[in-house]
């Protein structure tokens, strides 16, 4: 019991003094997940828009697959990517395994379906009268689409935030393709796993608390965005 309190106190001490190693781990986590998120948004939003505005054969099936991918097990994504990137794999010649790039790719795969699927959902739920109004005011088809996307912006932002929440907290994929190499590919979640294993609870706890803080911030942001979106949903009959 006293060991838990002691660990807690030491963890708080670590956070308070924020040593270089701790800071580096946090920064790398944010960098990897942030980059993955930006790239996933750059691909996911247009994909969501395409699905929202265009019809093509097997679109329903595609959407179902995309929705299913929102819940991809990170470990499975890590394993698959490992096989692709390992020396004997099809992309082995790129020597990406155990690099930041590999971790970014893994989290990109996890974030993309979330951003795309939630973007699609918010775009199709925009009141059709918006599209008509934009048309009556003389918009080109492209301008109409932009207007609809703009109206869906809070839903799209929720999707991006949700995706960030998922990748920043994920450990399975990043551990497999990043390798948790000290000073190189060691991020918050993988460090927590490793240090707990080693019985080094202070560092694990410190990182756990920080991760919790980040999760909390993400949820607050999500809440704010959704509240704003709700205000936007109040349309006159």
């Amino acid at each position, binding site marked *: 019991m006293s060991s838990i309190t002691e660990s807690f106190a030491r963890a708080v001490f670590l956070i308070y003094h924020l040593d270089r190693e701790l800071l580096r781990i946090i920064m790398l986590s944010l960098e990897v997940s942030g980059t993955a998120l930006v790239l996933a948004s750059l691909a996911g939003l247009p994909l969501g828009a395409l699905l929202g505005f265009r019809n093509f054969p097997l679109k329903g099936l595609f959407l179902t697959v995309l929705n299913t991918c929102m819940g991809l097990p990170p470990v499975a994504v890590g394993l698959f990517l490992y096989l692709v990137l390992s020396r004997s794999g099809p992309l082995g010649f790129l020597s990406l395994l155990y690099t930041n790039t590999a971790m970014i790719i893994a989290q990109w795969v996890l974030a993309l379906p979330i951003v795309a699927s939630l973007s699609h959902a918010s775009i199709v739920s925009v*009141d059709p*009268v*918006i599209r*008509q*109004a*934009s*048309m*009556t*005011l*003389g*918009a*080109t088809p492209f*301008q109409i689409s932009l*207007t609809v996307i*703009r*109206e869906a912006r809070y839903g799209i932002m929720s999707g991006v935030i949700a995706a960030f929440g998922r990748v920043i907290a994920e450990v399975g994929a990043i551990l497999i393709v990043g390798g948790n190499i000290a000073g190189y590919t060691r991020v918050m979640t993988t460090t927590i796993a490793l240090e707990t294993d080693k019985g080094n609870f202070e560092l694990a706890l410190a990182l756990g608390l920080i991760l919790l803080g980040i999760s909390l911030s993400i949820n607050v942001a999500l809440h704010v965005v959704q509240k704003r979106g709700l*205000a*936007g949903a*109040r*349309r*006159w*009959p």
Partner: protein
Amino acid sequence: MALRLTASHITKGYDGNPVLRDCTFSFAAHGVYVLTGANGCGKSTFLRICALIEAPESGDIDFFSVGAPLPKDLALRRRITLVLPRVGVFNTTVFGNVSYGLRIRGIGGSRARKKVSDALEFAGLTHKKDQNALTLSSGETQRLGIARALVIEPEILFLDEPTASVDQKNTEIIEEIILNMKRDRMTTVVITTHDREQAKRLSDFPLIMDGGKISAV
């Protein structure tokens, strides 16, 4: 030369139920046309087709200024506009809503600001310009729809029930705007309403829709 509109032999239905049947009418003169008719007879449908928002199943909508009908392209669509019964407010400020039509035409800067303030003034919404448009009352929302249309200076303005669920004072303001547009800007206005008194007050050309056709009263 003023823009004129002819609808010829328009047919339109939904899910196999005919709404407009061989509907022909020519909006040949400048003035206010007031279209009345029972609920569900097809007035809104007709306006959407005239405003080139929806295509008819058969028949033709033709706009003329001189000679041959104009091609139904973006340039033509930008000379007319329709204020929908539900308006379709964008989730931004009142100012942002009204400037929309100018922004998509690539008009910005002080010239655009002047036009927007004029339209807001015209619609009595100047004091609301920084408010989120979704928080307007229903009467203000209707006026917003009109301001948004005014700013692009349409040659033909379609208004679909602009005073439904609007109080008397706001109705007067809206009627005033319509008459001003007709007089000052030489706009041809086509409006639908269920208010007989309003129809009398506004119309140069009272029209009635019945059995999927339009006729002059």
